[in-house]
């Protein structure tokens, strides 16, 4: 289907299914129940899942295929957001032109930054990209204030021209797709459950599916094969008549455009862009997402993005009060000990939990969560096969006895 192999088609369908039904799948616990705080099916968080999924999918095209580890991809995320907000200010609150400009601008910046950075490889490449991103971050804060509105961040206001939309009547306008407002959502109540279906989420989800599909095509293309060859042996590539530079640059620009799209979508969900989005921690985050999920795999980056965003938003919300509730059934002394023990891992301490998880994955599952899933799958299959052997052995014995 759609020019994909059967295996990839199944993967694509599975991802499509999960994304489309995410509002239900991510809300397994009835609203109001004690476990409801583990529900992730609210629009704001779901949007983050898919937007950072896009960011990581794009990053994986560069890092997973060519092995070039960029430490400055957040710059393109930020550029995407600024471009989108400018589009909202000048042209229209429709998200389409905003997203298009985000992709184009991020692509242009990636072309320049990639052209310079790709003159080096390995750690020097990483440092160059990091330097560029920090430079962008600092410029956005200081010299470029007329464009970025410095510390306050770029926002829409009532006096913006918005040529296509005309003057707004009343309050600040909201982002929309041909009239469908991004913040709009319908809530469905089924028994004790409640599910939010938000326009913004489905716009992001559709683009994530498109981004994922394109990345599968790239992975299976001759171009993708060349990128893997770059990672494997550049020397052999050169002596085989292939110019590695344009290949790596193309991968860099494509992944920059993915980041731009993600940045544009962030602004489309909430029309606001700040320099923080370009900080090196944000660049580091996408590296973590990709490695945690499984660099070089198709679905890994999306998993990694989901995992990290889940922890960031859910674990950080759990506080001591909630812990006390959980352990209320214990004797007081024990309850306090448990709360003290768990305290460092929750709330502001979610980074610690994530850090430990990341270390465990890197040490025991170098292929990331995807490798974990594959190993589990193989374990089950082997057990099935063994069970099959036992059965057929029994059958043979029976046949021999008769």
């Amino acid at each position, binding site marked *: 289907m759609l*020019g994909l*192999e059967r295996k990839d088609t199944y993967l694509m369908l599975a991802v499509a299914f999960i994304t489309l039904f995410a509002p239900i799948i991510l809300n397994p616990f009835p609203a109001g129940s004690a476990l409801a705080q583990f529900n992730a099916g609210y629009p704001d968080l779901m949007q983050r899942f898919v937007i950072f999924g896009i960011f990581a999918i794009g990053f994986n095209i560069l890092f997973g295929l060519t092995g070039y580890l960029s430490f400055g991809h957040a710059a393109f995320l930020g550029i995407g957001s600024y471009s989108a907000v400018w589009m909202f200010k000048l042209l229209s609150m429709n998200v389409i032109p905003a997203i298009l400009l985000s992709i184009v601008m991020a692509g242009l910046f990636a072309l320049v930054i990639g052209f310079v950075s790709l003159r080096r490889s390995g750690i020097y490449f990483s440092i160059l990209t990091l330097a560029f991103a920090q430079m962008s971050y600092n410029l956005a804060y200081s010299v470029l204030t007329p464009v970025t509105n410095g510390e306050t961040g770029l926002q829409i206001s009532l006096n913006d021209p918005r040529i296509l939309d005309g003057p707004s009547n009343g309050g600040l306008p909201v982002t929309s797709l041909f009239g469908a407002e991004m913040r709009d959502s319908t809530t469905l109540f089924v028994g004790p459950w409640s599910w939010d279906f938000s326009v913004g989420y489905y716009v992001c989800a559709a683009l994530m599916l498109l981004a994922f599909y394109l990345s599968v*095509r*790239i992975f*299976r*293309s*001759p*171009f*993708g*094969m*060349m990128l*893997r*060859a770059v*990672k*494997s*042996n550049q*020397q*052999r*590539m*050169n*002596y*085989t*008549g*292939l*110019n*590695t530079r*344009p*290949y790596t640059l*193309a991968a860099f620009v*494509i992944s920059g455009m993915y980041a731009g799209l993600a940045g544009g979508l962030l602004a489309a969900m909430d029309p606001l862009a700040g320099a923080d989005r370009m900080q090196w921690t944000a660049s580091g985050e996408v590296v973590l997402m990709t490695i945690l999920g499984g660099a070089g795999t198709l679905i890994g980056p999306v998993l990694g993005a989901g995992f990290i965003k889940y922890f960031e938003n859910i674990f950080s919300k759990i506080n001591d009060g909630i812990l006390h509730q959980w352990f209320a059934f214990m004797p007081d002394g024990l309850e306090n000990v448990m709360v003290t023990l768990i305290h460092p891992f929750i709330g502001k301490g979610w980074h610690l939990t994530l850090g430990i998880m990341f270390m465990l994955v890197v040490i025991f599952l170098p292929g990331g969560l995807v490798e974990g899933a594959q190993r589990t799958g193989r374990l089950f299959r082997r057990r099935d096969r063994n069970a099959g052997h036992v059965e057929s052995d029994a059958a043979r014995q029976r046949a021999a006895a008769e």
Partner: protein
Amino acid sequence: MGILEVKGVNKRFGGLQALGDVNLSVKENSVHAIIGPNGAGKSTLLNCLVGKLIPDSGSVMFDGKSVLGRKPHEINQMGISRVFQTPEIFGDLSVLENVMIPCFARRDGAFRLHAYETVRKEADIREQAEAMLEDVDMLDKRHMTASSLSRGDKRRLEMAMCLVQAPKLLLLDEPTAGMARADTNNTIDLLKEIKAKRDITMCIIEHDMHVVFSLAERITVLAQGTPLVEETPENIKGHPKVREAYLGEAQV
């Protein structure tokens, strides 16, 4: 005029004169062997031909055009392929992919953004690669990861990757080193077969005299960076200068 003309090439590494005034002329469609003791500068000479090193002085002409100053990928696209002394293959890729990549390089040139096509649908390229693997007796290993091959197989794979490009000039740097006798003989047969099938010039560096005498039409003896003699195989055997070069090595 040979297809490859090397004139007055010098290359120094610090105080070491690795190549001193090397002249070499390789006739089109011939097999030319370069022999010499270890450290004679044989690999260095090949490096100067494929753009890995730039000679300090001298000229290298291939097919009437200068090779100097061109990038390795440009030189390959001119029609020179090289088998390295230690196999250079795509270790993370499958054997079949290793051979498909040079096919793509021939068909699509040094760069093409074929990001929306599908490898699986490139039947021509695949067939071409599989036919080549058949020729080197490796078709059954096509789905193996290249890095898991034995050393001999890695060499044969690299040779297949070069041959599938149908180069005008094939440079081989000790292609049978580390191979068992049987594999060495297979390699000789393979090269002879290729030679019989199409027009190709080969320049081969070899330690194994059996290989040299089975294949070469001309032999150049290199010692301490300078060619001592250039002769036919019959005349080289008892040549006093050759003895001297090799005995010199034995005494060290």
